[in-house]
């Protein structure tokens, strides 16, 4: 039976991430809490809007109401990478060789490890940015599609068009697919390695709510999503992705929305967080469910696995966070 070590934090907690075996919790007020031989707190922002795990390094990246872009180390040390007075930084992405990208209005700013800065301006606001896994390339989600830019060249953007507002973007781990969340209750996907003339679009619809959380399984065989009273898990193992296939619906509960999903780093096991604070673990192979946490005070806003896959941290909008040990 998993054990839950609670951590109560004041106010809305935006996200949680592990760096090694140390869980971090980022609050909307701008504090970063970490459990490293006791609770340690550092102030990263005056008002924090987003905090992500840099997929390319053992650090966190955050953006705030104070216009700052901050890198946070495993010891909680903060480094201000950029500061844009009077602008909110709510979109941020980490790339290879310590590159960081963030959005300021209609512009994606890429700051490379050597401090050089490159800007890519779109016609509309940039709502999401992701780095490709190979090469220094970014995808900027915006109204009516996604723009792909090679950071090192001045070549024009490759545009992936689809009508509507795209609010977030992610590359599949193998780089063959690109998926966006939309203002509508839908995902949209593009097959990036398609032949000329081939239909490259993937529409993933049917959600009762907006999709705010996405997670790829190890090796990218599955893409899990929130936005329904079950985790909606799309199959991406075939060359055409989920085209013509129905998704799995895992952890179905009547009328209780899934707000967060996080795949285990090694196994095809999905952690599912709900709007009432409950957390389930579900194995893809047999869809077997395990209750990891009973309902709490608020919606789950973040889920993160430790590198070993034995610990799962969770964040809540009401501040009732914690760490679940599933090996116990």
């Amino acid at each position, binding site marked *: 039976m998993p054990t839950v070590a609670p951590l109560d934090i004041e106010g809305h907690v935006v996200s949680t991430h592990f760096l090694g075996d140390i869980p971090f919790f980022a609050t909307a007020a701008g504090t970063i809490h970490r459990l490293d031989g006791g609770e340690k707190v550092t102030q990263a922002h005056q008002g924090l809007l987003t905090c992500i795990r840099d997929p390319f390094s053992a650090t966190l990246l955050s953006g705030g109401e104070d216009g700052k872009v901050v890198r946070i180390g495993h010891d909680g040390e903060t480094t201000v990478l950029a500061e844009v007075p009077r602008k909110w930084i709510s979109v941020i992405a980490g790339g290879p060789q310590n590159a960081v990208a963030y959005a300021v*209005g209609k512009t994606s700013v890429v700051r490379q490890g050597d401090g050089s800065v490159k800007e890519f301006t779109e016609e509309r606001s940039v709502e999401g940015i992701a780095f490709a896994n190979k090469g220094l390339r970014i995808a900027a989600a915006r109204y009516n599609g996604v723009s792909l830019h090679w950071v090192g060249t001045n070549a024009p953007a490759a545009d992936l068009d689809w009508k509507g507002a795209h609010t977030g973007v992610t590359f599949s781990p193998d780089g063959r697919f690109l998926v966006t969340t939309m203002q509508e209750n839908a995902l949209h996907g593009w097959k990036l390695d398609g032949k000329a003339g081939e239909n490259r679009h993937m529409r993933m619809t049917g959600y009762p709510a907006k999709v705010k959380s996405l997670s790829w399984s190890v090796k990218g065989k599955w893409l899990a999503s929130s936005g329904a009273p079950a985790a909606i898990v799309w199959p991406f193992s075939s060359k055409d992705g989920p085209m013509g296939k129905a998704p799995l619906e895992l952890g179905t509960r009547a*009328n209780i929305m899934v707000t967060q999903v996080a795949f285990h780093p090694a196994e095809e096991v999905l952690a599912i967080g709900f709007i009432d604070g409950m957390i389930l673990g579900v194995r893809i192979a047999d869809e077997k469910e395990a209750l990891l946490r009973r309902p*709490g005070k608020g*919606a789950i806003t973040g889920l993160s696995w430790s590198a070993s896959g034995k610990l799962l941290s969770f964040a809540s909008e009401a501040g009732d966070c914690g760490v679940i040990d599933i090996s116990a």
Partner: protein
Amino acid sequence: MTDQTTEAQAAKPIPVTVLTGYLGAGKTTLLNRILSESHGKKYAVIVNEFGEIGIDNDLIVESDEEIYEMNNGCVCCTVRGDLIRVVEGLMRRPGRFDGIIVETTGLADPVPVAQTFFMDDDVRAKTELDAVVALVDAKHLPLRLKDSREAEDQIAFADVVLINKTDLVTPEELAIVEDVVRAINPTARIYKTSRSGVDLSRVLDQGAFNLERALENDPHFLDHDHEDHVCGPDCDHDHHHHGHDHHHHDHDHTCGPDCGHDHHHDHGHHHGHHHGHHDSMSPIHDITVKSISLRGGEMNPDRFFPWVQKITQTEGPNILRLKGIIAFAGDEERYVVQGVHMIVEGDHQRPWKDGEKRESRLVFIGRNLDFAKIEQSFLACQATAKTPA
């Protein structure tokens, strides 16, 4: 989520005030007053540019107006994407402020702003549109109406209109401006001010967009001829004698509150501009928004709902606002309905009182609407009407 609603989600929605008005109408002055005067409340303000707001405040957010058409094939279903993001961020720490104010640019269409608070589930769950306040420059309104549609839209869409800079016009000019505002929007509360000097309690926390609350505050706001109608406490004008003859134009003219003459059956029938005394002062000629106040008896819900659904689907792009109180046959409660373009919402408000006349009233404000046809089809929804062939 029914009984599964958690503490955090059960919090009272934060009121949102939308401030519209042309450049120079006095928005910044009003904002500065809201931010600096001691009224015991704190407001988060979303602006397009910091501009001349000379006040240092953590809660002023600069945001690029970003209009999104919803992907549902409806051209009028637009929302402000940037507002969705900013409101989500603000609402994570709701204890910091008592309300949110959205300042739009002078040329902004107020509709996407308002629709954001209806069409986005997340925004809707945590906030409530309190009122749309339009500032009008008394001196320049006639000119604005000539050269832009937005000035008219802003008035048509407002719950509260501040006719500002009254010190720069003559009483006669002011009377014309007020008539114009009334003609565009018969249901708005109008205040006449100079230097945006309105009592802030008339602008903030109005509950004007919530029809149920609007009716509680001012039970007669749909009754323009009702003697108890509140025209705004600062209203000092005489509705009956304007001292000049523009009332005789009388084409689709909608009278101000307390207006004595019977106009309820005239709407939509006097289309001709048959006035010989054409007066270059009269900006009413530049108005393209019109309104109709419908009145009927008890309605048959099986006719009314399909009707209102159909009319908002087919005429949605032309309908700026609709508001009404409906009496349904056999229903002990008043039903209130309101809409923006294609969005219509309705709910039971309260039981009919003893002796209260059970009648249905509905106001449409819009463009290119066939009022005669709307009235006819509205009346055909009455419980006593003959079933249409």
